[in-house]
């Protein structure tokens, strides 16, 4: 600070009287509305630090604030309107129109619109044109067009645009006059390209492009995908290869002399040709589906030989398997040059001594890796387990030894951890030491040390029932509207395959047990809940004055592993204001694999979604993850605020107070522990492990189907294409349970088969249970 000299002599200050007057004007504190009297530019500056939603909500403070938000330069509009379900009410799209209508003359720096409602080209184009007039720099549209969109021509010649992100399930028509003179980031998702020329034209019209991402795009009209962008630094190509076999079958040529990061998740069938990637530093390659074995080796080697100077290479085990199919084993003569030139360390995680992995190790023995070392990390290796275990025990022992040295209370601001987290889970495994170091540096400072001898606050209460429940939120939301006494009229919907747990939970929530609708399903629909059946059930309930409340759509039912059609059901639910819960307890973990995600197409419409991490996520029972679109609904249903539980952190709205989301006042240690435990698991477990288990399970299911194919009269419950359905049934199956009502006419055949089939016997069921209804 500058030196401060006291000079209270008024005579040296000719303006003193005026100054005192001015300073009195700004005396602030008790009872004065200072914030409203701030200069306009300061208020706008404050608003710029708020989310769009918070900024718009200031309109209600007083008349002065009504239109102050209309100058915000970052507009982020996400469709959160559903759930009221009243179509006649103002829609989200009308609201977006309003935002543009009221926006003042100032620039719009970024615009994000994300909606599930169907939109027309003319409406979207009016938004785009308005944002172009306001010198838009970042445009991010994720919309569902009713028909083929025709985007305004002047979008394609916009000079202010720096970032363009489009999600659309339609063709992208590229005008011949296209020139994005300042575009640095282009991300196209689910976009179908029309032809070779216009696609190439698009890329060559971006003279300064640095980042390009093509996610699940449609290539069927292309023979060659040519990406020739000398300025490109980051390229991402992602596809759901397995399910759309042959879809991405065009030759893909990449010329990018300045490319630094390459990420490529695709089918082995794609013919990738990489040219001139001399600047590449890290590459991450995941190729799925090695069904066409001979080609696979060719493709993998082709792709890897293009990444000559790469310093860091992440490959999935499937990709490594691509080496597998060479005639002479794995000919060293064709080892990609990066292995012998630039790569220094290769980490093989989840080592299981497959032929491909052994071959890879032999590379190292032959000094093919430059000064190389191959580290084998195997979480199931007893010695590694012992080492990591000792490390943890040491850590715990040290903690208890030094417990009184820690300050009892948490030393951090609420929310401190989220800013320290990386944007995504790492693709490469990290050693346990690094993870523990982070626990020391980032977790410990945030802990309240209950075990400290200096801790004299209240004792943690025991939580009687863990977990929380969207149902209660849904119930309260509706009861607040229609009156508490109407609880007997509420109705819950599910298929007749729905797990009894849903019905039990409905009873706990106070729903009349007679008002659980188990809607019949049929084998023709693979026992999935038919949207039309749901709609007619809702209509007949409405007709007799009942109130449809809650839909439980299930992905992988317990009795038959049926999958309900999430998207169409959510549309019906939305139409009638029914809370749409998607229960993927059984199969949800599989969606970590991109190729299974189409099972939850339309999930954006759901109000809540749950999955069990203890199924395929290597987590101990029980760990159920629940996502809720509007957490406030939960809080309103379960919040209480007695004085002894009030604290600064919660009242700052910076932290989630879990007591408001569940029945107990505190979380069982296990609940927090599992959340903590899954973070190191995600980091040191390496994604291929997560990606690998579900696909391996599907492989087992396929094997089983192959085995049982010889039996003409063995009926598969679910369609052959529905791989995921079969997984939970056949994976890890030691018990065979047959419900007669599921099999109908073929039930007798099944019994016969079981009695007479040597092959089925060889599957070694421990127990076969048969239920005759």
């Amino acid at each position: 600070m500058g030196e401060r000299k006291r000079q209270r002599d008024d005579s040296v200050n000719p303006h003193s009287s005026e100054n005192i007057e001015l300073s009195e004007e700004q005396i602030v504190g008790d009872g004065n509305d200072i914030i409203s009297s701030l200069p306009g530019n300061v208020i706008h500056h404050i608003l710029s630090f708020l989310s769009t939603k918070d900024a718009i909500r200031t309109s209600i403070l007083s008349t002065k604030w009504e239109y102050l938000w209309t100058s915000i330069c970052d507009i982020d509009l996400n469709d959160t309107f559903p759930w009221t379900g009243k179509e006649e009410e103002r829609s989200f799209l009308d609201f977006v129109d309003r935002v543009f209508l009221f926006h003042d003359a100032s620039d719009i720096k970024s615009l994000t619109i994300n909606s599930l409602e169907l939109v027309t080209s003319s409406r979207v184009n009016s938004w785009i044109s308005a944002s172009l007039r306001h010198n838009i720099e970042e445009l991010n549209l994720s919309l569902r067009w009713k028909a083929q969109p025709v985007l305004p021509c002047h979008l394609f010649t916009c000079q202010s645009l720096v970032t363009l992100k489009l999600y659309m399930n339609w063709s992208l028509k590229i005008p011949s006059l296209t020139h994005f003179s300042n575009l640095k980031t282009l991300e196209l998702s689910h976009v179908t390209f029309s032809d070779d020329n216009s696609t190439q034209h698009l890329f060559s019209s971006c003279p300064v492009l640095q980042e390009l991402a093509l996610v699940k795009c449609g290539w069927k009209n292309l023979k060659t995908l040519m990406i020739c962008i000398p300025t490109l630094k980051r390229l991402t190509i992602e596809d759901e290869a397995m399910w759309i076999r042959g879809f991405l079958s065009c030759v893909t040529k990449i010329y990018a002399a300045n490319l630094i990061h390459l990420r490529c998740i695709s089918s082995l069938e794609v013919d990738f040709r990489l040219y001139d990637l001399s600047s590449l530093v890290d590459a991450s390659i995941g190729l799925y589906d090695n069904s066409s074995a001979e080609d696979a080796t060719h493709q993998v080697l082709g792709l890897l030989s293009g990444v000559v100077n790469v310093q860091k290479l992440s490959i999935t085990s499937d990709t490594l398997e691509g080496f597998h199919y060479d005639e002479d084993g794995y000919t060293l003569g064709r080892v990609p040059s990066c292995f012998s030139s630039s790569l220094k360390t290769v980490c093989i995680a989840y080592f299981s001594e497959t032929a491909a992995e052994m071959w890879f190790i032999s590379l190292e023995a032959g000094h093919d890796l430059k000064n190389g070392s191959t580290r084998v990390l195997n979480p199931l290796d007893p010695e590694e387990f012992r080492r990591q275990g000792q490390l943890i025990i040491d850590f715990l022992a040290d903690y208890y030894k030094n417990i009184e040295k820690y300050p009892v209370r948490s030393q951090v601001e609420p929310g401190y951890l989220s800013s320290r987290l990386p944007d995504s889970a790492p693709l490469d495994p990290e050693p346990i030491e690094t993870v523990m170091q982070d626990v020391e540096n980032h977790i410990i400072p945030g802990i309240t040390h209950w075990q400290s001898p200096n801790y004299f606050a209240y004792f943690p209460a025991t939580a009687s029932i863990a977990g929380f429940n969207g149902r209660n939120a849904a119930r309260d939301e509706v009861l607040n509207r229609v009156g508490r006494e109407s609880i007997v009229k509420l109705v819950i919907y599910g298929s007749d395959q729905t797990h009894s747990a849903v019905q039990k939970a409905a009873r706990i929530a106070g729903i009349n047990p007679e008002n659980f609708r188990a809607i019949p399903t049929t084998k023709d629909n693979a026992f999935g809940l038919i949207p039309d059946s749901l709609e007619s059930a809702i209509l007949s309930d409405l007709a007799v004055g009942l109130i449809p409340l809650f839909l439980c759509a299930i992905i992988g039912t317990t009795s038959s592993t049926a999958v309900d059609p999430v998207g169409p059901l959510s549309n019906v639910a939305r139409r009638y204001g029914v809370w749409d819960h998607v229960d993927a307890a059984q199969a949800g973990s599989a969606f970590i694999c991109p190729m299974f995600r189409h099972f939850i197409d339309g999930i954006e419409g759901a109000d809540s979604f749950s999955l069990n991490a203890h199924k395929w996520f290597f987590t101990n029972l029980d760990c159920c993850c629940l996502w809720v679109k509007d957490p406030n609904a939960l809080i309103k249903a379960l919040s209480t605020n007695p004085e002894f539980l009030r604290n600064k952190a919660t009242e700052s709205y910076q932290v989630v107070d879990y007591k408001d989301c569940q029945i107990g006042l505190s979380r069982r240690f296990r609940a927090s522990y599992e959340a903590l435990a899954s973070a190191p698991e995600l980091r040191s477990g390496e994604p291929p492990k997560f990606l690998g288990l579900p696909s391996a399970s599907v492989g087992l299911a396929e094997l089983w189907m192959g085995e049982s194919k010889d039996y003409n009269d063995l009926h598969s419950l679910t369609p052959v294409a529905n791989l995921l359905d079969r997984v939970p049934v056949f994976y890890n199956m030691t018990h065979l349970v047959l419900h007669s009502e599921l099999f109908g006419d073929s039930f007798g055949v099944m019994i016969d088969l079981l009695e007479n089939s040597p092959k089925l016997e060889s599957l070694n069921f421990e127990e076969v249970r048969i239920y005759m209804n």
Partner: protein
Amino acid sequence: MASSIENNNEKLTLKSSDGEEFLVEKHVALQSTLLQNMLDSDCSSADVIPLPKIDARTLALVLGYCKKHADASSSKQGELNSFDSEFLKDMDMGALFNLVLAANFMEIKGLLDIAAQKIADTIKDKPHQEVREIFHVENDYTPEEEAAVREENRWAFEGFP
């Protein structure tokens, strides 16, 4: 900025609205675009520069901020960040508003940003009734008008009482 290097030891005098004078090193004063422009436009540093909108208490805080930022080298960004977050911690609303006004008047962008951010954080995620209370904003809407504003902007009020 050339002048700041040449005359690194030069000092200038700033005078607060309530008549207190502060002797400030020139490179510290240059954190303020307002002062920088004044000095560039040949305003003699021998003169006392009056800051008629800023009281002594606020000016002392502002100069503390400028001193820290002028002296820290760019390599110490982490240290500056933690200084910034400590700087506004536990500051009462009145002082914070004086500070945001001073930063705005003196054109000190970094200080304006952290002060505005702090005020925004106070508004964030809170029901409007609570925001009104904290900032003493008088609600001059009629109940009908208020309901209409809320309805028109319903998207933003989902989940708020």
